[in-house]
């Protein structure tokens, strides 16, 4: 997008206002991605912080190829993945899954969508991290399997398998809900 290219050009010349505008533009998306992956708002905020500060350190040298939103989302996903693995508590067994905080109040007409979104988030939380990551990056952030494979360092086939198994698992969890 042209606006992003102009912002990056100005940012590279030391414009803090441009960095502010980039942050304001994508902050909610990035936080949403980190929360979806990590299931913990506090850690998600840390991830967004790391990514934006890391981006700021590129002043003067950042080269945008592709979408700025995609680049920042990839940084968030990489950071979240590292944190998830560092926190996996392998020395002492399985890691606990933490609850997402409640969101802000919503208008009445969003109530049904909010409820469905909440249900889906609860089900997504039950997936293994790697499956949740692929589903969120592909369906929420539009990343292609090839891009996800590149950033995670596994094959495209593996990414597609994780995606399929993740959706299968979601469907089977929904089966369980319907049978109740």
């Amino acid at each position, binding site marked *: 997008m042209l606006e992003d290219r102009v912002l990056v050009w100005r940012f590279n010349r*030391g414009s*803090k206002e441009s*960095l*502010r505008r980039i*942050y304001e533009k994508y*902050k*909610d998306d990035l*936080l*949403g991605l980190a*929360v*979806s992956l990590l299931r913990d708002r*506090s850690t998600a*905020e*840390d991830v*967004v*912080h*790391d990514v*934006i*500060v890391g*981006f*700021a*350190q590129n*002043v*003067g040298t950042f080269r945008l190829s592709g979408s700025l939103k995609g680049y920042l989302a990839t940084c968030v996903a990489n*950071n979240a*993945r*590292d944190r998830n*693995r*560092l*926190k996996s*508590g*392998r*020395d*002492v*067994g399985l890691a*606990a899954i933490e609850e*997402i905080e409640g*969101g802000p109040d919503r208008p009445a007409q969003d109530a049904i*969508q909010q409820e*469905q*979104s909440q*249900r*889906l988030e609860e089900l*997504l939380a039950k997936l293994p991290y*790697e*499956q949740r990551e692929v589903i969120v990056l592909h*369906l*929420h952030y539009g990343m292609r399997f090839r891009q996800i494979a590149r950033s995670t*360092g*596994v094959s495209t086939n*593996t990414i597609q398998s994780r995606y399929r*198994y993740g*959706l*299968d*698992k*979601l*469907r089977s969890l*929904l*089966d369980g809900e*319907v049978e109740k």
Partner: protein
Amino acid sequence: MKLKRNIEKLIRILKPRVNTGDEMDKMILDDSFAAMNRVMQVKSACIGMHIGRKIMRNPITKLAAAAVVVAGVVFGVKVVMNDLVRPVYALEQTLEACKNKQQAHFTFVQKDELNKAAWVEYDADGNLARVRVDMVIDSNGVPNQVIVWQKGHTQCWNPKRKELRLFDDEQYTAIILHFVRRYDPRRAVEYMQELERKGDVEIGIEQPSDRSKPIAVTVNYKPNTFRVDSAYPPMREVMLVDQTTKLVTAVEVWGIGKDFGLKEDEWLLFGVYKYDGYDEPFEDGIFDLEAEVGEDVNIIDMMTLDVGLEFAEPNLTEEQMAVAAVRAFFESLIAKDYNETARLNGVPGEMRAEFIKGLEKMNLNVVEIVSIGEPRPHSKPALGRFLIVPCTIAIDINGQRVEKGIEDISVGRPMGHPNRRTVEFDAWSALVVK
């Protein structure tokens, strides 16, 4: 029903709405602007050096530059003399400054938030006596893990899971001693010098003329020299030393490159070890975890635990043991011997009933181990002592044989049991029969 049929479409449109807060925004922007300033100051200093070189190539400006230098000598003699009499810093001065210190307390701070805290105590002979490390401290001040080590005995407390694990483990002791050696100033300087002699690190020292600014000792670690227990990419530490006391006040930890999600030549400050005081008394009971954890905690003595696959033969390689452990794990699933599965998965006895119930609900039907691939070290540095063992297994789905490739499986050593290996497995959903 509707949700199930249109699941991909609905996941797309039901993207959660999350908003940042004012406090978070301010912190991120403040830190980002500070980062920009630091980078731009460095660039501006480098540009100054380049300009200097450019000037000197030009014969016309050389004469003018020489005149400036002469003027500087004439008018700056007093300043230069002051610099000449100031002693130059050497690492031995820090060694001397902290050689009689009995205790040290330091914290690891990331983005102005406490992440780790450590207390180190020596005995009268100068040997390490006790260490406590609170790790991955959250915003409420609750750590993910607390380790207390006393002369080879380790207690590991997980407050969120309410578990206290006890073990004696030589390799873990080596990790603790290495950690202390790296970050306790009394030991860190000797350690740095030893690494430099071996060629594992390069050390640079910058001593500002402004005595209010700290001396910076930069240590660049070559690959696989940063930790004893796992492979690591190149790292950097910058030790800040007070010019008056010669005591270490902080150590910055920097990482570089793709292994940390960065560009190849990009450095990132991970955090800072801050030294909060030398020989200030610790609070009572700080090394007594069993008193601290309270009653409602599951105490697990790892030394009496029967987990993992045991190897009587000492000559097997790590890779051979990893393959054997994975094979035993899947064989237990084929036989539906879930007690054995739990044992190989490192589940303590009192937790097995629940674990087995969980497996039974999953309706697993593994029928064959098709192949077990070549084990490889975990790609993430913090998990480097685990081996990933990719494999292919076959499950039966309503009479149809389906092969599944498994990547999320690794093998490691349970604490206190050097001859055993347990299997870490995260891909249960891949084995579920629908």
